[in-house]
């Protein structure tokens, strides 16, 4: 097991003008589960591939366990990887697939067999060891890919959107299983995903990326609660954070949203009189039929089973609010909203960066 230290990593693909990764620095502690999260094209996969040795950076360095590997070929890095497309070897049996890395490393036969049995047992592949991947379902193939990766006892385990090719139910189930496996192994893991749910549920820390840069790095709950900018708030959460134009009153105690006034969060104190962007998560919006700080018109009502998702109009801006499952409303109804001050986040109206006290 090892830590991973990435410093000032720059990569531009040949023929491209934009940097795929733009001066990225990131330290991943020994045994940490780090998630790289971002929309497609943000550079997360490029970063992972450079760590794996499948792409070479133009500048910067990568060290694994204190050893510089920046320009080392992939096979000398002692890593293990799970690919999005599974990338199992179709011409080899499940057993030979799982054993592949160990056989290449010339481990002795007994140890290989023992490891393969252990991994197959862990991933419930025991019955399929002698089959070819073509005879397995997608979920089983991904299990083979994970088994192949974990038998290696590698310093670092890399995962490139390993769940994205599975159907929704299987994805949820395997996510839990994967978290348990990685927890038990304690291997340093770098996990790439564009699914915010996976990022929040799996990571010890989450690095949210955009346009080749890390825009926020931190504990998943912190990143979710206090997005560093509008992009992060809009990317994390389902549905994402709401943003409303607002103005802080001169003493910083209240916010004006159109003609309505709501109590301001503590961070507003030092920004009196300023135009801001107010961020509030749908589940923090309190909806009532009787009283509240704002009046809104219900546009769409979407029961989700565990809650009722309302799309309402406040002034001329749309806002999503998550009401209790028992809440009854119909399109056209008038409802009243309140924003608990502690749950409000303020962003600069121009730069969209978070405003703090």
């Amino acid at each position, binding site marked *: 097991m090892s830590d991973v230290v990435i410093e000032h990593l720059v990569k531009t693909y040949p023929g491209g003008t934009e940097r795929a990764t733009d001066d990225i620095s990131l330290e991943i502690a020994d045994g940490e589960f780090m998630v790289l999260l971002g929309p497609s094209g943000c550079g997360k996969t490029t970063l992972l591939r450079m760590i794996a*040795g499948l792409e070479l950076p133009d500048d910067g360095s990568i060290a694994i366990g204190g050893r510089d590997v920046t320009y080392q070929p*992939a*096979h000398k890095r002692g890593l293990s*990887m799970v690919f999005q497309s599974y*990338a199992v070897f179709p011409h080899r049996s499940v057993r030979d697939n799982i054993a592949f890395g160990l056989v*290449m490393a010339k481990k002795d036969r007994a140890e290989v067999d023992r490891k393969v049995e252990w991994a197959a047992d862990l991933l419930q592949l025991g019955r399929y060891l002698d089959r070819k991947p073509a005879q397995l379902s997608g979920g089983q193939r991904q299990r083979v890919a994970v088994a192949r990766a974990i038998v290696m006892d590698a310093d670092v385990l890399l995962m490139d959107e390993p769940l994205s090719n599975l159907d929704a139910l299987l994805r949820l189930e395997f996510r839990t299983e994967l978290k348990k496996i990685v927890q038990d192994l304690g291997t340093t893991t770098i996990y790439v995903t564009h699914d915010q749910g996976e990022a929040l549920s799996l990571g010890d820390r989450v690095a949210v990326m955009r346009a080749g840069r890390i825009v926020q790095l931190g504990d998943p709950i912190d990143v979710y609660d206090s997005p560093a900018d509008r992009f992060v708030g809009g990317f994390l959460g389902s549905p994402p954070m709401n943003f409303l134009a607002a103005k802080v009153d001169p003493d910083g105690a209240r916010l004006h949203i159109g003609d309505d006034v709501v109590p301001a969060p503590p961070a507003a104190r030092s920004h009196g009189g300023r135009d801001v962007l107010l961020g509030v998560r749908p589940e923090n919006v309190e909806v009532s039929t009787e009283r509240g700080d704002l009046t809104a018109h219900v546009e769409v009502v979407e029961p989700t089973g565990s809650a009722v998702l309302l799309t309402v109009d406040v002034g001329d801006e749309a806002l999503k609010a998550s009401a209790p499952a028992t809440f009854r409303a119909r399109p056209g109804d008038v409802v009243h909203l309140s924003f608990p001050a502690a749950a409000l986040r303020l962003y600069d109206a121009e730069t969209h960066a978070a405003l703090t006290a």
Partner: protein
Amino acid sequence: MTAPDRAPLRRHRRNRVLLQVACVAVTAFMAVPLYLITLAAVSSRASLNAFPLSFLPTNLSLETLTAFLSSTGVVPSFGNSLIVGLWTLVLSLLIGVPAAYGLARTAFAGKEPYQLFLLFTRALPIVVLSVPLAQLFLTTGLYDTTYAVILLHTALSLPTTILICASVFLAVPVDVEEAARVFGCTPAQAFRQVVAPMALPGIAAAAIFTFVQSWNEVLAASILTLNRRTLPAQVLSSLGDSPLAYRFAGGFALVLPALLFIALMRRYLTNMWGSTIR
């Protein structure tokens, strides 16, 4: 409730029958000449001149074939053809497979024109190529050797070998190769352990094509050799002044090895098709 309109179903059934008929017709178009030539080759000389000709093997005899095989030059030229075919196959794979891999896996300036350029060898008529080559081979002492024919056949088959194999390598996913690299393979090992086995069916198809091409090529072989003729060149040169039976037997001898070779490699082909159709 009215009965459903069954016309689409009837149309569907009719189309299926028509498709079957078309398949049978195409197969017959290929198979009947093969059958007739085989029949003629294994019939006695007398029955070939009989009227009407029997379409069933009634007068089986090896007389025609043995007569053909014992004619001058047939057995050695048969051997020459085999040598030329196999060496052409080996050489063109040896050069063509790495070239194809390079084409499939790397991007370089002028790749598109280069691929087109590869086909230019085939744009020149063989006669145009053969005459200067005969001159060249005469001065280098390669004239009238199997090497001369092997070299030319290799040059002729390389474009197709490279283009077929390149498309085969393109079909092997890059991730699988990358997975092999991450799990400890050098690039060469990744090729041997993972890419090559997955590409094998396609490469086998290219090999068959090369062999059959070489086996059937007659013009260059006739120009570049005198005494070390390949079978088609030998048959061609003696076709004009030989009896009917000799021609049938010659045709049969030309078709048979190519067919046998295809049957031998069939396992790889069906493997490939089996895995793509799924």
